[in-house]
């Protein structure tokens, strides 16, 4: 039962990464879109694709936090205590990103649009970066199970910082791939080319950062590295193949199917991490899925809640995304 809830948490993280992550990536490209004049078209596409969905995508984070603290309270509080600073900064990023994005729509003066837009775009980097350092810190075994105080060293190791950069780039990669497809679907050739080049660049940088993080992890946590290249190897290979396939398709000028393949690649990384760590929650400690402070009944209840969530949310998300796809929401 605890394994099932671990799977639910990993699924929630995957969905936050491929849906919420792309919304943060949109902020990255908004930031890099240049002057008001030059960046108008890409920013308009970014804005239109994020607008109706970002709040729903964001809820995955809240959902993941709730599952984490309910099913694994001991690991949760250890993470919260040790990594308080990057978590506070992630929360600040969430507040500023959401506020900046929502406010930019409602202001009409260019100066105010610039300010709110800059807040949105800059803070879109904060959350993925610091979330990346949090995951990096956990993976390197820097979170002690009895931690009661914050540690700066835990999340400023080379591995954790590389993971932060990797998260930012991966978000940008997903966003650029999605935006390329969207521009292609709308017959916007200029924009398609614009985002295609950025998707290619992000794919290369993300690939390089993935390898660098893996190398750094080899030094920081050989055990986890061993599992990543052992039992999680098929997933690692899948992630690599997906990345290369997207790169090849884009270079060949094809956009069809790239969205799904890119999302699959990122999901493979998340699940690879999960499989490599299983059943340990905090590497380097004895805290596993089954002994982190929740009774059996809690797992059962969470599985029921997740079942209800699938029944209720599946069709609802399908409706939202299909209406957005048909451009009914603007």
């Amino acid at each position, binding site marked *: 039962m605890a394994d099932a809830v671990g799977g639910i948490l990993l699924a929630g993280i995957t969905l936050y990464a491929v849906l919420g992550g792309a919304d943060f990536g949109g902020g990255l490209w908004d930031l890099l879109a240049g002057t*008001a004049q030059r*960046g*108008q078209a890409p*920013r*308009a596409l970014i*804005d239109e694709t994020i*607008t*109706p*969905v970002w*709040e*729903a995508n*964001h*809820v995955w984070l*809240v*959902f993941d*936090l*709730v*599952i984490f*603290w*309910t099913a694994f*309270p*001991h690991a*949760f*509080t250890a993470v919260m*205590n040790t990594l*308080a600073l990057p*978590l*506070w900064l*992630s*929360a600040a990023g969430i*507040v500023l*990103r*959401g*506020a900046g994005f929502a*406010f930019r*729509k409602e202001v*009409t*003066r*260019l100066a105010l*649009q610039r300010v709110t*837009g800059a807040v949105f775009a800059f803070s879109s980097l904060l959350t993925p970066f610091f979330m990346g350092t949090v995951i990096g810190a956990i993976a390197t075994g820097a979170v002690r199970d009895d931690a*009661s*105080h*914050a540690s700066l060293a835990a999340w400023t190791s080379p591995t954790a910082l590389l993971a932060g950069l990797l998260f930012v780039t991966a978000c940008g990669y997903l966003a650029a791939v999605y935006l390329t497809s969207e521009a292609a679907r709308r017959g916007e050739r200029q924009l398609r080319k614009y985002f295609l080049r950025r998707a290619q660049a992000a794919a290369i940088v993300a690939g390089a950062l993935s390898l660098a993080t893996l190398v750094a992890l080899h030094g920081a946590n050989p055990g986890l590295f061993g599992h990543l290249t052992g039992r999680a190897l098929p997933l690692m290979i899948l992630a690599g193949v997906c990345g290369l396939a997207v790169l090849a398709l884009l270079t060949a000028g094809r956009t069809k199917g790239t969205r799904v393949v890119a999302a699959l690649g990122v999901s493979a990384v998340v699940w690879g991490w999960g499989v490599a760590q299983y059943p340990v929650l905090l590497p380097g400690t004895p805290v596993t899925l089954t002994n982190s*402070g*929740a*009774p059996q*009944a809690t797992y059962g*209840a*969470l599985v029921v*809640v997740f079942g*209800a*969530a699938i029944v*209720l949310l599946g069709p*609802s998300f399908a*409706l*939202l995304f299909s209406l957005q796809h048909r451009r*009914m*929401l*603007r």
Partner: protein
Amino acid sequence: MSLGSGVVLLAAGQMNGEVVPARAQMATTLGFHIILACLGIALPSVVLLAEFIGLRRNDETATLLARRWSQVMGVLLAVGAITGTVLSFEMGLLWPGLMRRYGAVLGLPFGVEGVFFFLEAIFAGIYLWGWKRLPGWTHFWSGVPIALSGILGAMSVIAVNSWMNQPGGFTQRGATITSVNPWQVYFNHAALYEMPHMILAAYMVTGFVVAGVYAAGVLRGRRDRYHYEGFAIGFVPAAILTPFQIFVGDTAARAIARDQPVKFASMEYVPRTSRHVAEWIGGVYANGRVYAGLKIPDLDSLLVGFSPGTKVTGWDSVPPAERPPVVWLLHLCFDVMVGMGFLLLLAGLWAAWEWWRHRRLPKHRLFWLAGALSGVAAIVAMESGWVVTEVGRQPWVVYRLQTTTAAATTNGGVLTSLTLIIVMYAVLGAATILILRMLARRWRAGADQETAVPYGPPPSLPGERASQAES
């Protein structure tokens, strides 16, 4: 720093120096979010009511109101979503002791809430951005799930809060939770009165805030159908709910006298367990007596048990360390909440009388002044009630099971995060209000189109846009 305050700080440090700033930060962020939560719970229903009237009666004014309110709702839901997320982080960052021990129990209603938060966000995406392309009634129905999930989500969050007041539905051996009954956790003893009390509060806050905006317009001479209709769609439902809220509140107070007698004793200034307890209206308790309060003999006993001889438990039933701090704050907050409730009831009765006699809204300026202030009054009442329930539970975070001090983080630096968050929330609150006012100004200028493109040179529109081209 004086020697005295240094000693106080030292003493606080021994008992965990972060608990005071942690409580201050939770109070700031939750006090801010709770207003947005109320609007998030009930504004969709008010917007849907306007849209319903618009569709049913072919009333263009109502439709226009619904469209504009839905733009406001977009801003408020976004700010509510992010400030709510901050609270999720704070559960772990500020209260690791609580989450470590009871996360597996109180997390379950939060999990249910997560599902409704999802539904709210998904259908808000459809409803808010579907005005242009979805046909009338289809669009209306796409908003109904937002209103329903607002209520069900609120029930889930209140389930957690009421569980902290009346914990149950689990067994504990030492520090370990050994079993959980999710049903009993969710529908705990206090949930039965806290849920309706808070949800009615959300509807009253929202209805009166909406009414307040248009009453202020009427006071400024904007006496047109648009303003009267905007006022009525907010005011009428809120005024109808007010007497029900007073009934629920009265029931809740009696339940608290039974379930959390020390909280009740502090609310009502009952130092000693006794019969023939007097009711104090106003007044400050200090040095064992009440200053400047109005004393009504026997009334408190009468309210608790419908007889002047009813025994009421005083705070002397527990040792001083287990009593809430600053009883006068609790008592005055309670009085303010009740007082505001009755003032709002009077405003509603005035409107009802005028409608019964003359089939119109009151013309008297005082009524519109009351209407303009009703939103603020409802918010003040709601915040006061929240202070009563939270401060009144102290020193416990989980009633009689865990103290707030034991729950608080031991990480230093909460004072820093508190300072930063006060600055950030001040800016966020000011920006939200400024943007809503800007929207109102733009609407009065007759421009309803939202900006088409972020950052870009604007599409040619009259009014405000012209000045922008010059700059």
